[in-house]
């Protein structure tokens, strides 16, 4: 192992720097990458670690994101640890290869720094890109701040490389709000981090010339379905391995993560369900509206794929009203998150369902303020008291012009 970097107990890192250090500590064999705002600094920081001898692997600076993921697939099939990073349009260009990577069950780790999709061109953060790749058969993890961007990157290798999983994994962080916002981060030392992740043991590598492997075969109607079903099945059951890694990370760091996480929900009647940095804003709002007599809480999930339908449904069913916050707009539909959360309630054997409403917010990083969040809690409270929807099911926050709503 090359040079060990001396880290302080507390480092002031933004989300990108936190991710870069985690990738460095994982001692990845091959990174193939291409820059795009806001994930560019991950690649740049990594480049400086390479230039200064802290990385011993190969850093392949390809000509596009499609090539980045293609190189990652070839490298991972060859039999070593592989990672990359991207955002938005870059992720869109990669999508074809995402399916190929998961189909080949290659444990690649991808940092997706979430950003809006053109047109119109917008470099700022929303979750549109995350939904673009959600069905590609990758595990998707969600983080709220730089500390978590660091922690989840370390854990992502453990999860992806688990022999019972072997599924590529995405770590999502919010563009700018996390990626470019510096906070105190408590890193592990290089040795402790590496020991937590462990050495990578590849299976059927291309570089094994005694047992030549064929990667990426064709399978028509006689086998294709079985391959896809097998991937789905493993993905759906990967929650066990994921929680195990969360638990071991807790033992090591005292930082607790769960597949579904709740804040102040013990006696809550109304909750906001959100992903990413919005979770922290919603917690502040929940605390404040409690002073107004609203029994408010917050729920989030750390694992967007596999979607934790049952766990989430069990937790949500007892509230009176739930707002589902979508930071993307699937054109012509209810919010993507809304649809999945609503489906989770039908996974539990209970006729009692909360009143659900859908808020579309933050597209192209339009501000979501505390005033907005307080208003949402008040509307939820009205829904709860009336035991039905008192406002349209789908609303847009902070949108100028004609009032848009659905239902």
């Amino acid at each position, binding site marked *: 192992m090359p040079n060990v970097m001396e880290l302080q107990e507390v480092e002031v890192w933004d989300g990108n720097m936190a991710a870069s250090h985690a990738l460095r500590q994982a001692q990845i064999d091959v990174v193939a990458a291409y820059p795009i705002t806001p994930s560019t600094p991950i690649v740049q920081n990594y480049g400086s670690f390479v230039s200064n001898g802290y990385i011993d692997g190969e850093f*392949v600076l390809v000509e*596009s994101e499609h090539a980045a993921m293609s190189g990652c697939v070839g490298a991972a099939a*060859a*039999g*070593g640890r592989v990672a990359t990073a991207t955002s938005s349009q870059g992720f869109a260009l990669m999508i074809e*290869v995402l399916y190929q990577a998961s189909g080949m069950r290659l444990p690649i780790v991808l940092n997706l720094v979430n950003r809006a999709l053109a047109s119109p061109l917008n470099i700022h953060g929303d979750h549109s890109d995350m939904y673009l790749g959600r069905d590609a058969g990758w595990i998707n993890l969600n983080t709220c701040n730089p500390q978590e961007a660091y922690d989840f990157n370390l854990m992502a290798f453990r999860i992806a490389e688990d022999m019972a999983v072997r599924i590529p994994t995405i770590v999502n962080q919010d563009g700018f709000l996390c990626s470019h916002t510096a906070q105190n981060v408590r890193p592990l030392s290089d040795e402790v981090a590496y020991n937590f992740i462990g050495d990578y043991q590849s299976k059927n590598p291309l570089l094994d010339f005694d047992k*030549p492997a*064929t990667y990426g*075969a*064709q399978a028509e109607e006689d086998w294709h379905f079985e391959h896809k079903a097998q991937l789905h099945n493993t993905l759906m059951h990967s929650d066990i391995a994921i929680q195990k890694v969360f638990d071991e990370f807790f033992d090591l760091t005292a930082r607790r993560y769960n597949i579904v996480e709740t804040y102040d929900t013990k006696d809550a009647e109304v909750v906001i369900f959100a992903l990413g940095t919005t979770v922290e804003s919603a917690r502040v709002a929940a605390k404040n509206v409690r002073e107004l007599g609203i029994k408010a809480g917050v729920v989030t999930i750390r694992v967007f794929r596999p979607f934790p339908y049952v766990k989430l449904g069990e937790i949500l069913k007892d509230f009176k009203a739930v707002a589902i916050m979508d930071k993307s707009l699937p054109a012509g539909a209810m919010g993507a998150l809304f649809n999945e959360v609503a489906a989770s309630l039908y996974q539990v054997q209970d006729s009692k369902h909360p009143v659900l409403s859908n808020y579309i917010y933050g597209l192209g990083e339009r501000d979501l303020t505390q005033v907005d969040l307080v208003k949402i809690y008040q509307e939820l409270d009205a829904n709860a008291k009336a035991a039905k929807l008192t406002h349209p099911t789908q609303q847009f926050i902070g949108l100028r012009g004609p009032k848009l709503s659905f239902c």
Partner: protein
Amino acid sequence: MVNEVKNLKQFSKSAEKFEGAHLLCPGCAHGMIIREVLNVVDGPLVLGNSTGCVEVSTAVYPYTSWDVPWIHIGFENGSTAVAGVEAMYRALAKKGKYNGQRPKFVAFGGDGSTYDIGFQWISGCFERGHDMTYICLDNEVYANTGGQRSSSTPIGASTSTTPAGKVSYGKKERKKDILFVMAAHGSPYVAQVAPNKWKDMNKKIKQAIETEGPTFINAMSACTTEWKFDSNQTVEVSDLAVDSLVFPLFEIINGVEVRITYRPKNIIPVRDYLGAQGRFKHLFKPENEYILEQFQKNVNDRWEYLQRREEAKV
């Protein structure tokens, strides 16, 4: 394992790494070229393949024709898949995690995936200097999807997207000159081969694979189905292609030095080559006669150009 094929009898026995069971059409030249590549490589070899006739006829789950490590990702990225493997080899060798013999890395693509959709990926790999050989199986058409034009399709060919008709003589544009484009990347070795001239092909492929850095081979691959000739005519049609100088055999060293490796004793007219294939049948109508002349002129000009480049050594 056979390393140097000295005669055709030996060639016919030397298919240990590419099993007989594949689904290429009878008479397809792709298979001949692949066998030759596998014959000339000494030691460990990793192959990458882009989507196309070869991929769909050699790796149909749960079967595989390949007795060497082989990877296919998509239509455009066979080159980068191999570059990824090569990068991983370097990383693992550096870290002492791979201790075996240094492998050879070869990527195959059809002309569609080479001249068109995959061109950017190949260009990137060559610019970055990966130690690999890219081999284009050039049948001048998208065969796997049913015969659409590519930028390698020659002028006048009738394809399923440029069909000859009442007001069209087929494809309007000339074939892209991929050899010089690849040479311009500064590649140490670029060559054009044809499987009927198998000793020349054998030598060039060996040289390409043994040369360090990114090297390129354009292999003429006659396609019985889309060129429309009988499946026992592959070698004859290939001979016509080479002897009419439609497919001149040459190499380019270090990006500049052109060497012609085969000069036909009797150069035959281009129309003999075109006339042997269904895809050019319509060119022999009186109203299309000028395209035949144009084709012949293009071939003459290019031959002249190659000879001058050879003489000039620059």
